[in-house]
């Protein structure tokens, strides 16, 4: 991109409009790097290959969810039901993943399908009625949790096949599967958002819904795609989680929605829509993961962990925003 025309910027006036894609990303990257350097100095165990592999594996589930929710937030919506979708997809997958029943593709497909179906339900209700996404997805959050409990009868679904457990626990070319899945999802989501028409429409719908409509974009179609996609990614996350802990947990994923949304927003996605990148979201997820890993490594007492965690997250985004307004 060309250098930013400063005169134009000031004309619009308010400084926060400066929050463009480019600069926003760099700010948080800097904050992230700074944090990593501090941690490497404070604990020698931080900057080891084993620990980095660790962090990426741990981050993978939140990142998958955060990618999905990034799409949703870019269109100006919100999805609170992802945590519950993780549970439903996990339980459904687990129910089909007992050894010597179905080939491993069946639980995978069923889990994905569960996520996609719930996501589509969100999209359907949001586009057919005027109910705000917050309420719709809060509703499906509760419904989903109930479904997961009903399907599992309130008990963990365990005894899963080794091939299923490979998804979260195995390695390919020496790389843990969750990391491979993360890389693939990252590539696909990035391309979808940046290189395809539907990605363009997501930005348009979130940036100015009326303008998008007046340009002939069918809002409902875009929203359906986005919520379904988010559900599908939550389903994938549910499968990875279930496989990683080798059980389908009906209460898995509770509260995951906040972490995922936080990752997206830390990464520069704007809650008012129209702005955001998958790369930024990944960095947001990594930032959260690194903080929590670092606090464990340094054995900060658990009450203080929470305080420190909150302060660092705010601090990182303050740093980010400073680097934006300085320009």
């Amino acid at each position, binding site marked *: 991109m060309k250098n930013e025309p400063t005169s134009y910027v000031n004309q619009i*006036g308010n400084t926060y409009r400066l929050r463009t894609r480019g600069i926003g990303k760099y700010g948080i990257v800097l904050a992230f790097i700074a944090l990593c350097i501090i941690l490497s100095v404070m604990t020698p165990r931080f900057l080891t290959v084993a620990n980095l592999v660790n962090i990426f594996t741990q981050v993978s589930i939140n990142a998958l969810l955060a990618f999905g929710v990034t799409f949703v937030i870019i269109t100006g919506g919100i999805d609170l039901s992802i945590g519950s979708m993780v549970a439903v997809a996990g339980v459904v997958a687990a129910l089909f993943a007992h050894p010597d029943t179905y080939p491993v593709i069946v639980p995978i497909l069923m889990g994905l399908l569960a996520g996609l179906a719930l996501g589509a339900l969100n999209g359907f209700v949001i586009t057919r009625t005027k109910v705000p996404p917050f309420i719709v997805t809060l509703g499906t959050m509760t419904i989903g949790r109930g479904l997961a409990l009903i399907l599992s009868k309130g008990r963990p679904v365990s005894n899963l096949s080794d091939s299923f457990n490979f998804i979260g626990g195995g390695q390919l070319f020496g790389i843990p599967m969750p990391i491979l899945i993360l890389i693939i999802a990252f590539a696909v989501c990035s391309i979808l958002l940046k290189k395809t*028409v539907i990605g363009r429409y997501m930005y348009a719908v979130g*940036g*100015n819904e009326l303008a*998008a409509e007046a340009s002939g974009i069918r809002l409902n179609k875009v929203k359906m795609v986005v919520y379904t996609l988010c559900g599908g990614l939550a389903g994938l996350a549910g499968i990875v989680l279930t496989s990683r802990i080798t059980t389908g947990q009906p209460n898995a994923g509770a509260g995951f929605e906040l972490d995922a949304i936080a990752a997206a927003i830390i990464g520069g996605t704007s809650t008012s829509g129209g702005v955001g990148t998958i790369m930024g979201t990944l960095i947001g997820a990594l930032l959260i993961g690194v903080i929590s890993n670092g606090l464990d490594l340094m054995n900060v007492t658990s009450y203080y962990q929470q305080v420190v965690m909150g302060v660092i997250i705010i601090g990182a985004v303050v740093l980010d925003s400073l680097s934006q307004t300085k320009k």
Partner: protein
Amino acid sequence: MSQSQEYILDVRGLSKTFSGIKALDNVQLAVRKGEVHALMGENGAGKSTFMKILIGLLKPDSGDIFFEGAPLQVKNVHDSLKKGISMIHQEILMVPELTVAQNIFLGRETTRFMPGWLDDQTIYRKANEILTQMGVSLDVRTPMKYLSVAEMQMVEIAKAISNDAKVIIMDEPTSAISDKEVATLFSIINDLTKKGVAIIYISHKMDEIFTIADTITVLRDGRYIATHSATELDTNRLISLMVGREIDSLFPDAVELGGQEAISVKNLGRKGSFSGISFTVKAGEILGMAGLMGAGRTEIARAIFGLDRFDEGEIAVNGNLVSITCPQDAMQHGIGYVSEDRKALGFIPNMTVKENITLGNLSNYTQGLFIQQKQEAKIASEVAENLRIKTHTLDQKVANLSGGNQQKVVIGKVLLASPRIIILDEPTRGIDIGAKSEIYKLIRQLTASGIAVIMISSELPELVGMSNRILVLSEGKQTTILSKQEATQETIMAHAMPH
């Protein structure tokens, strides 16, 4: 149905009601291929509502629309665009984060490799071609949000004409651009009509109508009044059709006043935007500010009002140097500002007419913490009546007013804060001719009561007619200040042209 084949678009008996209030009542319109059909009417007459129905943004309550002889059925804008109807919207509809080119081709992106894979290279190239053809120099990769209102309007035009439409609706396409760009638009329109494209043209600028229109249809209060060939009408007849009465002289006579110096600006500048701006305005005086699109007038106004910073220079009010870092400072020093971008800076869409009007000086109707509701309502209704704001009730949301009436609300708000110095940035943008004369009268009243006015306008007749002196800008530099005697449209243009 024996629809006459020559009409590409034929609308009959169209009605539309908003929550019990008729915005359109049994209106009709018949547009021929290759003609420019002007749709005229006062603010709130229902023109935009009508057009939004045609494009599929609103659903009519009843009525028939025939397009190329067949009933037109559109569920949404997607369908109407496909059928060959496109529209320049009165309120600029753009996605701020997307680039100029991406906005121009929004909804009809070129793809390559496979369906759905964006080909931005081609989009940038084509957008560049279109804009170059239009004589607009803009980097097509600039995000839309960095553009001035005028530039955005040019992009809107580019978007609508690049759609290969058979009918193009232009709802006040020139409200924010200056004469040079208007001339460009007209030559584009000429090319289009030669190719058989029909244009429905809405504007409050009378001279434009008689330059470009072949046929004129007039609406009043949501009802169809008449359709005439442009040659049958003159300005006065048209106005009386629109308003239902005659309008006396547009520009009331200026009263010469040798008042005290109200504001003086010395050597104001900001890097990359404007520099060397020096002027004084006396109480009761109107200083006009002229310049081409992008000359920097709005930026100067924003800086004086404290919305933007400036790097150098000083501002004195009543002879005392003041420091202005935010709008509150400016307002405390008695400065008021009517922005050219009313949607972004002018009003709160979800608040009522009354609440918007009183927002700037609520403290005058409060006792302790409490708002004196009765007093507030009384004052607001006085303002609404003075400015002839057309609204069903003062508790109507401003979002639901017609564009012109929104502008009046903004002016009302600023005036109510009783400023001693008022900056009007395109104050009559989108305002109908009747209301314009009201506003001119009002400005005269203001000056008569000793208020100093800085008036920015791209309508030269208005500037010449109203100003005591005119400051001319070219590319962010002050080229001259013309006295009333010197100021003609020609001399202004000569000083405004870049050297």
